[in-house]
């Protein structure tokens, strides 16, 4: 099976090749574009799964990961290479990314049917898939950063896919700029690491940290800068503002990029560079607290939004917060296990609401409800996803969230634990609120309830498969921890599991009482909570805060510089230039005169040089 390892580079390469082919010939392929993309991603997915066994055997036998690479650029004596490194962490990510990418692309065949830029959509999806796979096999920081930005580019292109809509164009720009703020942090960390160690290799950095060659403050700084990058990509507070707006993109994009894979790259990055974080207690605290705060705040915002796609986006922020929390309290296994189950059940939730959007053509809860009568299969898959998200046993989310909560409890930080458990309650409430309101109650849809049907088969099949995953992936915790070699899934006895389950059930019950019992409704909840509900609904005014505190001052500064550059610096130059002329014979004449003078001087100078050279040469 070593032959398989030798072609592991094909996993990222094939989707990238599909992108190249689609860019060149996509418009001629028409509907075939989708199948080309699916074929290449499919082969990559099969390879990624087949690699698991030989690569982990290699990892155990050789005590180091399989590596392959080629020299990309020489910088003095440093060789920068690109290639493939098959660590346990990377081996876990490869099937997650490729399989979900495959399923989402199949779904998109139905979802994007009839779109004017259908081939282009699949070209971008291929570019994303290839870049994300190349990111997770990176042997060094440079390759990681290259594809880190490439997936960001794909996110930009796909959020703005319907570019005629100003909202989509603005959301795409916002996503790119906000994540770039984080990216600059990661970039500076890479520069500092290179300055200190002269290398971009992960192993070199981790070795330098573990052998204590680097000062404690320096390590903390690097860890925090890396985390800034991770927080931007994984939409953690306070850089989370781009992700809800990113829902302007087509729903398959939201499922693949903005739920299952790219936004999880931040979590992956922290897991990948974990030894750097582990060497700094302060950095670990920051990771844990930012994670817990993001989990809690996003869940509260999700309670009050009426755009149901955005609710799920806030849910993603919240769940990514859980993963960061797991890492921050020291368990890579817990964080990565939750990343795995979340990728499956959140993709499922997006695809299910995507089916609703596809049929009902709205994302507003107030405009559509009672779909159970028309979309039973969609409803069932949605509720499987909702059970997994709320953490009801034996669905996937229960096992992985339990791991994180257990890790928090065993660390004994009660502040974090309270936020973690409260979020369980909120999570159950907001997702079942969506479920109850969409599928039950009055039967209506904006273009007529009678026109709504189940989505086409091409969309239903991936939803069904993901639903199976949302039930099943929770049982693979042991395999994941063995693959990662980072310790077992944390356990803290029955207490944590029972408390979490009870809280989730309470949340579901509260949603049931609020939305399905007559006489009580959202208006009552809003009255009960008063200004708190308004704060949830207005997302704590964070966007407005950025607008007033960052965007407008920056634009004002830019306008000021534009003015000042013309008025002060340029005027100074112009008056210095004009002074001799003004003294002479009036500005206008002098100016034309001056140019001729300068040219005359220049020409004479050249002529003189030639004359001198002729004379000099003859000597």
């Amino acid at each position, binding site marked *: 099976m070593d032959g398989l390892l030798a072609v592991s580079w094909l996993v990222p390469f094939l989707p990238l090749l599909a992108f190249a082919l689609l860019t060149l010939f996509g418009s001629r392929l028409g509907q075939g574009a989708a199948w080309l993309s699916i074929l290449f991603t499919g082969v990559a997915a099969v390879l990624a799964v087949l690699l698991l066994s030989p690569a982990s055997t290699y990892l155990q036998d050789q005590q180091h990961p399989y590596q392959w690479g080629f020299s990309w650029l020489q910088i003095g004596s440093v060789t920068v290479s690109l290639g493939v490194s098959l660590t346990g962490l990377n081996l876990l990510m490869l099937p997650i990314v490729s399989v979900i990418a495959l399923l989402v692309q199949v779904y998109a065949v139905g979802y994007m049917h009839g779109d004017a830029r259908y081939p282009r959509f699949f070209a971008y999806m291929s570019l994303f898939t290839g870049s994300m796979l190349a990111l997770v096999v990176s042997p060094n920081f440079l390759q990681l950063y290259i594809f880190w930005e490439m997936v960001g580019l794909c996110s930009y292109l796909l959020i703005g896919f319907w570019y005629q809509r100003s909202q989509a164009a603005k959301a795409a720009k916002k996503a790119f*700029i906000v994540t770039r*703020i984080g990216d600059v942090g990661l970039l500076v960390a890479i520069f500092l690491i290179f300055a200190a160690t002269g290398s971009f290799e992960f192993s070199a950095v981790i070795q330098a940290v573990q052998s204590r060659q680097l000062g404690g403050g320096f390590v903390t700084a690097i860890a925090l800068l890396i985390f800034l990058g991770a927080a931007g990509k994984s939409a953690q507070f306070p850089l989370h503002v781009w992700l809800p707006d990113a829902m302007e993109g087509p729903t398959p994009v939201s499922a693949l990029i903005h739920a299952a894979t790219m936004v999880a790259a931040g979590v992956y990055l922290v897991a990948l560079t974990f030894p750097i974080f582990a060497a700094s207690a302060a950095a670990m605290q920051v990771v844990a607290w930012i994670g817990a705060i993001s989990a809690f705040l996003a869940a509260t915002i999700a309670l009050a939004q009426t755009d149901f796609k955005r609710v799920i986006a806030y849910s993603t922020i919240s769940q990514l917060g859980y993963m960061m929390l797991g890492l921050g309290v020291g368990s890579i296994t817990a964080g990565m296990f939750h990343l795995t189950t979340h990728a499956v059940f959140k993709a499922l939730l997006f695809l299910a609401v995507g089916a609703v959007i596809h049929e009902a053509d709205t994302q507003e809860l107030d405009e559509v409800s009672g779909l159970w009568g028309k979309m039973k299969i969609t409803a069932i898959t949605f509720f499987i996803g909702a059970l997994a998200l709320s953490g009801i046993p034996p669905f996937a989310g229960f096992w992985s969230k339990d791991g994180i909560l257990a890790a928090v409890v065993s660390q004994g930080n009660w502040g974090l634990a309270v936020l973690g458990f409260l979020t369980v309650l909120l999570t159950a409430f907001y997702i079942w609120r969506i479920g109850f309101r969409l599928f039950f109650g009055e039967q209506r849809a904006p273009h007529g309830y009678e026109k709504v049907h189940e989505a086409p088969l091409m969309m239903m099949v991936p939803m069904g498969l993901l639903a199976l995953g949302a039930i099943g992936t929770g049982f693979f915790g042991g395999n994941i921890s063995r693959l990662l070699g980072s310790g077992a899934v944390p356990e803290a006895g029955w207490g944590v599991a029972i408390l979490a389950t009870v809280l989730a059930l309470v949340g579901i019950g509260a949603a049931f009482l609020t939305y399905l019992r007559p006489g009580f409704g959202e208006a009552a909840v809003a009255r009960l909570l008063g200004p708190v509900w308004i704060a949830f609904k207005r997302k704590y005014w964070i966007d407005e805060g950025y607008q007033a505190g960052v965007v407008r001052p920056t634009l004002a500064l830019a306008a000021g510089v534009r003015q000042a550059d013309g008025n002060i610096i340029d005027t100074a130059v112009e008056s210095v*230039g004009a002074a001799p002329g003004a003294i002479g014979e009036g500005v206008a004449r002098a100016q034309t005169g001056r140019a001729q003078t300068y040219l005359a001087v220049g020409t004479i100078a050249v002529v003189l040089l030639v004359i001198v050279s002729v004379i*000099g040469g003859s*000597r």
Partner: protein
Amino acid sequence: MNLLLVAVGLPLLGAVAGAFLPSRSAALWRWWGVGFSLAALVAAVLVAVQFDMGQGSLQMRLSLPWVPLFGVTFGVGINGISLPLLLLSAVVFCAAFASFGWIEERQKEYALWLLVMECGLLGLFVATDLILFFVFFEVVLIPSYFLVGIFGRGNREHTAIKFVTYTGVASAVLLISFVLLAFTAARYGGGNLTTDIPALTQAMGAAEARIPAGLQTALFLAMALAFMVKMPIFPLHSWAPDVYRDAPIPVAAVLSGVMSKMGAYGILRIAVPLLPAAASQASWLLGLLGVISILYGAIAALGQKDLRLLLAYSSMSHMGVLLLGIASLNTVGLQGAVFQMVSHGLIIPGLFFVVGLIGLRAQSYDLQELGGLWQRSPRLMGVFLVLGLAALGLPLTSGFIAEFQAFAGAFRASQLQVLSFIGVLGFIFSASYILWMVERTAYGPLPPRLEQASIRDVTAMEWVSPLVLVLLVVAVGVFPALVGTPLTPSLGELLRGLGG
């Protein structure tokens, strides 16, 4: 015959021979220019083919006595630093001639002046004598006066005068410092007066300890000042927005893409190797001006409404990155600086061509009057987007690997670390103004005014110049060794001279 002389001589031949032809047909002059610039490009490619990638010292060296009295030689040669710039210039001039369509009258004059300018630029990058370098420096300036003053738009005469005056003063400073340098080397080194750069480098190296530090610093700063005007670097930039706004698009492309590199090349190839101690002393100042240019240019770009002015300030910001890379005075930073010369030299002309084509279609360069062009011109907007992404440093374009190395070098230089922390904010601003520019041009609905206009996608002749540049931007981004391989030995040699 020395291939370098062929490459430099072909455009000159075109200019001189063309002067005797009648000026009637417009098409003739387009193909005349394309023909001679393509021939020069072929010669430059042959130079690259014959170039020994493993060698760091000057190759294809030719040195004839020119003014023996003052030790002036007619010397040419090429190394791994000048080779990419020679190729770059040849490519950008071909692109400029291919996009001839903007010039509606006096095509003969236009083509001939542009050929003279090409000769000056190609010559500058292969000159190995200070005086010859200076002659080429001036040969570039004179045509640019006519090209802006006659063929520009708006207040073109005023702009051309300002440009010539400003850079003319810089030239004077440069000539004086070259002469002083030659005399200094002769006096303290004890040898004959010479302006041959390799000989001067040796003489200055040997005499370094004896030359007063103040004199070295003064000479270095004088040269750096003159060179920074050309790039331009804050606060010596105020000619640039006017010129880039008023020059005809192909001329703006050539000036911003290649002429601006004369300054950076001069610092890297002349000022730093000849006065290494002063360079290292003053490196913080270069770094400071670099960082100010990065941020000032980027913030000013964010405030512009005119597409060409936006590119002008963006260009200045990228020159700041280049200067910061030079200021690091270490391998990775200098390599980044050379990459940035090539990268920016490909990106900014490409952007000017695209912006010119936008202007032809929308009859406006004002961002507030544009929008939605992707619907009508998807190919043009696709190229615009890729070039824009390259300008904001997206990986797998030349812009990334250039800026990455320049900053990696700056962070490695202890005197620049704090400045570098401030400078990286430029990455955020560049993303902001570029994506804003793309959004306001390509995305959203078409404004009503453009809805009625019949806007077509690009024709083949319009397409070729930006397309070639964009392909090169991606090629260098994906295979940076294209630039890096010939560069490594020459940079090694340069750094050995710096004692690093």
